[in-house]
């Protein structure tokens, strides 16, 4: 899921770009890895994160385990996509509601899709996100760390947990927020913010654009194509 984060940033075109955009982007990029570190993987070595814990504790547990796995697994760090997929399935999926992420990104079009299309779309979008991770994962090093910021407000059914991730030793910390909903299985992360940019919001226009031009199947196809 973190992956999205990366995305945020920049563009090839913006390249030499405006300073603020540039900086933001750079951090975003760094963030991606951070994120992924955070969300991505849970280490088998430790106790599994408790989805019914307080929101901050839950994210911290997931993040710590993730970092632990990342730092120990050279295959992940070299961006081995099969391995990344495996780890995501095993350690990330339980804590992330991909379907919700996809549903919100699709907005009003979600209801126009058949259940088969909905499932295919979630799968395809998930592929996009995982691909983003794999690039970011390679950058995690022993200096990567995460610090949870104090939880603000009241714990309702839809909460945001904030953190700062230091992507690599000596790198600028990156602000990463996790939005999650309380479900019957406990907390599930469904949206991610890196330096002010929400993942879902950043995909909404692209989704609606594709659907308008080529329909829902066209969107699924476009996502899958990029996943090749």
């Amino acid at each position, binding site marked *: 899921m973190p992956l999205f984060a990366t995305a945020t940033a920049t563009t090839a075109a913006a390249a030499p770009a405006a300073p603020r955009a540039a900086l933001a982007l750079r951090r975003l990029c760094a963030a991606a890895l951070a994120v992924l570190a955070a969300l991505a993987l849970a280490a088998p070595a430790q106790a599994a994160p408790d989805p019914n814990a307080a929101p901050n504790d839950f994210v911290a547990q997931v993040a710590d385990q993730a970092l632990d796995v990342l730092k120990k697994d050279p295959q992940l760090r070299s961006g081995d996509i099969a391995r990344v997929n495996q780890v995501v399935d095993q350690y990330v999926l339980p804590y992330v509601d991909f379907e919700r992420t996809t549903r919100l990104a699709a907005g009003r079009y979600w209801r126009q899709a058949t259940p088969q299309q909905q499932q295919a779309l979630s799968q395809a979008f998930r592929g996009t*996100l995982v691909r983003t991770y794999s690039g970011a994962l390679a950058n995690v090093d022993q200096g990567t760390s995460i610090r949870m910021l104090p939880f603000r407000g009241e714990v309702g059914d839809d909460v945001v947990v904030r953190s700062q991730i230091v992507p690599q030793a000596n790198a600028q910390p990156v602000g990463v927020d996790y939005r999650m909903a309380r479900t019957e299985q406990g907390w599930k992360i469904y949206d991610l913010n890196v330096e002010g940019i929400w993942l879902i919001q950043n995909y909404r226009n692209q989704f609606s654009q594709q659907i308008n031009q080529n329909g829902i199947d066209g969107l699924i196809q476009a996502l899958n194509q990029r996943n090749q």
Partner: protein
Amino acid sequence: MKARRSLARAVPALTLAAAVAGCAAPQGQQPDPRDPWEGFNRGVYKFNDTVDRAVLRPVAELYTFAAPEPARNCVHNMFSNLGDLWSAANSFLQGRGHDFVNTLGRFLFNTTMGVGGCFDVASANGARRIPNDFGVTLGVWGLGQGPYLVLPFLGSSSVRDGVGLGVDFVGDPASMSQVDNVRLRNSLWGLEVVDTRASLLEASKTVDRTALDPYSFVRDAYLQRRAAQVRGSKGQDELPDYSIEDDDDAPPAQPQSKP
């Protein structure tokens, strides 16, 4: 990062890019209210992307390959450190006293203990960088973002941020506009552009890998990011409301529009 100067020289190119590609508005879509000049912007985006792939990206890759990492970090930190001074000034203008003091402190600490900004010792000690500029200041003062605008060479901006860029050019020491020696100034600009592009290599690869439409991906990220900067830390509790478009009364096949 401040290729700003090239702005002046870029005007002809801008016109050209607009003429060549500008009129191709996206098919069959209602224009996004935040981006009324999308056809034009896409033209400039394409132009920037072409220049980037032909020149900037290869040069940045070469730089990353050839220059040792500590040297690159030092260069990057020194430009950032100069930029902190202008960030601090803007935080002051925005009445964000806390950010102002922190950023000024970063500058002083890095300039002294960090050997002229070569080492970002402030970040290492937990003092996070708070980038700021005059476009944000205008926003905090109440000026709306205005239409989204892609500038030649400079990339994502808006009418408001474009005005801000002009002020940044004069006020930001990192823009080197105060350097009188032309050769030195041009060299610094060159280095700054390469440094900036190099720092964006990973990010641009990610956009290439994951965006369905890089143009709107970048635009939406830029607008979200700028809005968050204007809101500042107080606006952190503002969350996007995804439910609006969740209702089924919405007409089918209409592009959604967000504020």
